[in-house]
């Protein structure tokens, strides 16, 4: 097995989940409904938990401990796509990002249930139910608000158009794409993108929203190789604030 290739894959999965988990947790206490506040916060916790499980795998492969990896790297050492680091904006943007990202995330893990790298296939099977809820949540909200009022439809439409180039950045290819596919570790970003487009089209097709043309949209790349927007570093500073004051703190 090509360890570097696996590590690259694990880092991008874990970093996506950690950063989006942190972003989504910023809604805690500010959600549009009490019940939704709880649901969105719970899913944020799930994402952090999933990222922790993947950082543990990296630790087994010789990388540093999960807390060290999560709290001490600077922005240019993170492999997350830029979509997940963008500020929350208003709830329409957060929902659209949740829908676009979690659809890809759930499909990625579904593909990983077949992974030849056993720790990944085991984790993929274990978290299937969590991912089922995340996509059910995203799809139900998008279908509801995507056909509700003029305001909800135009807000979602605006966010969808803004988020799409970033969402396409999820599928930025790894330098190890061929090895990863050949060794049966993961079927690859192109295959994932294909499945993702079908799912996105099927949900958006049930609303009054219009999908921007995938062919025209220009993907915003770079996240996977440490190129980020100005929004990531402030997020990391806040996330690691307690750790930097006292690395042994427990809470």
């Amino acid at each position, binding site marked *: 097995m090509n360890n570097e290739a696996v590590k690259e894959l694990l880092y991008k999965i874990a970093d996506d989940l950690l950063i989006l988990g942190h972003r989504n947790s910023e809604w805690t206490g500010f959600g549009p*409904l009490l019940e939704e506040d*709880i649901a969105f916060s719970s899913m944020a916790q799930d994402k952090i938990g999933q990222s922790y499980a993947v950082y543990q795998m990296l630790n087994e492969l010789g990388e540093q401990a999960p807390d060290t990896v999560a709290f001490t790297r600077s922005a240019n050492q993170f492999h997350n796509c830029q979509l997940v680091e963008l500020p929350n904006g208003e709830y329409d943007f957060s929902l659209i990002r949740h829908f676009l990202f979690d659809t890809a995330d759930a499909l990625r893990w579904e593909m990983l249930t077949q992974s030849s790298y056993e720790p990944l296939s085991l984790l993929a099977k274990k978290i299937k*139910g*969590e991912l*089922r809820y995340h996509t059910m949540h995203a799809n*139900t*909200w998008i279908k*509801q608000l995507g056909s509700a009022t003029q305001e909800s439809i135009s807000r979602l439409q605006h966010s969808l158009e803004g988020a799409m180039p970033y969402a396409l950045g999820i599928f930025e290819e790894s330098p190890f794409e061929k090895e990863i596919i050949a060794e049966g570790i993961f079927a690859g970003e192109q295959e994932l993108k294909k499945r993702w487009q079908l799912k996105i089209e099927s949900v958006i097709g049930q609303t009054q929203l219009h999908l921007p043309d995938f062919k025209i949209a220009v993907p915003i790349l770079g996240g996977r190789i440490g190129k980020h927007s100005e929004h990531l570093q402030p997020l990391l500073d806040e996330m690691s604030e307690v750790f930097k004051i006292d690395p042994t703190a427990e809470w």
Partner: protein
Amino acid sequence: MNSLDPRVVRLPQAGEVKPKKSLDQFGTFEVFVQAKEGKPFQHEGAVHSPNLEMAYLLAKETFTRRFTCVSIYVVDTRDVFVSPITEGNQSAYELISKDGEEDDKGAFEIYHLPKRGKQHVHVGTVEANSSRDAMYRAKDLFGAGKIIYNVWAIEQDKIRFTSAEEKDLWNTLPEKKFRDASDYKGGDKLKEFLEKLKT
């Protein structure tokens, strides 16, 4: 006139006649939870929601984010039929008379309130012609010799159940101990801190 004070906004302007505005809140949906396989469903509370499917979504995290759960279901509050409430030695079943109407033929889930102040617990399902008929039939099946303070009947067709494949929604729940206050051992930490102060 633009004011953020609802008392001002609600009042018609001088000389104006307006229809009463409807409230801008969502309706409520009742949530029933099964903690373990083989245990009865129990009423846990309500969520606000614009529709049944979204109520299911919101109920899942509002009522089953801690402890254990294997299944939930939700129903519009208006679809829960409620018997009179009794006290002392009188059972609610004594106040339910035979219903000759056939307005809602189907299967009904029957819930009992066995103790005042506790939750309603599922006791079984009956085929009936209406909600009142369902309660009337449930009396012999589930209520004989017991004092039940309140009975609920819910038509099965109105319920959003958890499907067999959705049962994995709670698979990782037992591992989420970080959602339990007890897992933080706040009491122990406080004790330790107070001991330290003494010395």
